[in-house]
């Protein structure tokens, strides 16, 4: 099994989720994160004190799937998360050795 972590623009979350479910994903987990990259942040000014906030709000989606689904899922994310502007985000794929469903104790593919 593989874990796919995608950092996307927050307002794209709904679209990506819908596409993933269409692509047969049964579950996913979402984290609010902040990103630093090519997309620039903004400046905040408080009574003359200037702060450069160079992190922008991003949403991270984590989804674990069978190895054979990876390409399809990555494809689904790329399609639905793309706006074409800098800051659209990245996808990272890593290996997962074991999955357990807490409720039933089922493991691996059964647990997804």
């Amino acid at each position, binding site marked *: 099994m593989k874990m796919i972590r995608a950092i996307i623009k927050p*307002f794209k979350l*709904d679209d990506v989720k819908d596409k993933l479910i269409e692509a047969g994903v049964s579950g996913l987990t979402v984290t609010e994160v902040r990103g630093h990259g090519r997309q620039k942040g*903004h*400046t*905040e*000014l*408080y009574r003359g004190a200037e702060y450069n906030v160079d992190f922008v709000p991003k949403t991270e989606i984590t989804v674990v799937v069978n190895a054979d689904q990876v390409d399809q899922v990555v494809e689904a994310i790329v399609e639905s998360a793309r706006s074409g502007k800098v800051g659209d985000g990245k996808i990272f794929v890593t290996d997962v050795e074991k999955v357990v469903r807490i409720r039933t104790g089922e493991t691996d593919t059964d647990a997804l």
Partner: protein
Amino acid sequence: MKKMIAKTATLLSGALLMPAMAFAEEAPKLDSGDTAWMITATALVLLMTLPGLALFYGGMVRKKNVLSICMQTIAIASLMSVLWVVAGYSLAFGEGNAFIGGLGKAFFSGVGYDTLSGTIPETVFATFQMTFAVITPVLIIGAFAERMKFSAVMLFTGIWVLAVYAPICHWVWGGGLFADDGVLDFAGGTVVHINAGVAGLVCALVLGKRIGYPKEPMMPHNLVLTMIGAALLWVGWFGFNAGSELAADGTAGMALLVTQVATAMAVLAWSVAEKMVFGKASLLGACSGAVAGLVAITPASGFVGPIGALAIGAAAGAICFCSVAFMKKAFGYDDSLDAFGVHGVGGMVGAVLTGVFASSTFGGAGLADGVSMASQVFVQIKAIVFTIAYCAAATFVILKVIDMVVGLRVDEEAEREGLDITSHGEQVLG
């Protein structure tokens, strides 16, 4: 009742003669009790805007826009106050023609330490009126929230208060157009709420929808703020309504009572309607109901009794609920925070029903001699129509001009990122 004092009251006879008027007809001298109440009332009405409306609206937007709502509120409030000194007060209450007052009182000339207006200092009357001129444009924010340029907001409200608010205020309270019609508008249902509601609707239509509306979720980010705002509106409204008597007397007392009763009833009406239609009564609904009730009782507050208040509250709660839950969806405009749905619609409900429940049949103060309920309702409707027509047309023209000069909307990226950072360089953390 403002106009009665302001122009030594000649228009309403018999049943509507209140103690305050008796005072007004003797050579009036300063009454410390009335003055005490009116200074307090002025503070209460300012409380409605700052922080009342800022919070009521601020809690309903997405977190990225809450500071922009607050900033617009405080900046508009300040601009209106200054413009009121410069010319607004004079245009509304100075000597002039039927359409608008003159500039004789510009820069408050002639308003000194011992000038009286009825039994209170004119400074107090003028400041009390100032708080009305402050809140009205702020109400409109609800319609264009989350997408209008800050410079355009300031330009628009600055022009609007002089070109739309001041004349309509003059018609109703300053001795203008409606002076001889016997229109009943105790505390500003027409001048403030219908006026702001209609201007809001025009703004919503001219600006267009927010990006993503209605597909993307645009949930109120913090209804605790909205509740605080609604509560402060409620409490402050005692100043608005009972203060409009310009004295601490029996009419002010009744205005206090009916304001409380109508508002409470409207909360229950909205909540019950919501429970029946959607299965749950919500805090946002209760707060919206409260404001709807407050709006609707405004024109009626010195004219009706507790029974009338129950009826007006129930009607306002139920009708505004429908307008917000169904009408907006049906027509598809994006009145972001329902400035029209609550203030416009609630104002009309109240203005019409004032004509009904002011009658002594329903325990009201009674209609003028020889005026039937039907004819009073007709007069009320006429005033509504005039107000809508003028307000809508003038608001439209002002917006179009500003659109050409500086543009009305922020760009797409700024709207996505939120106005707090893009327009004001600050945000709420954590």
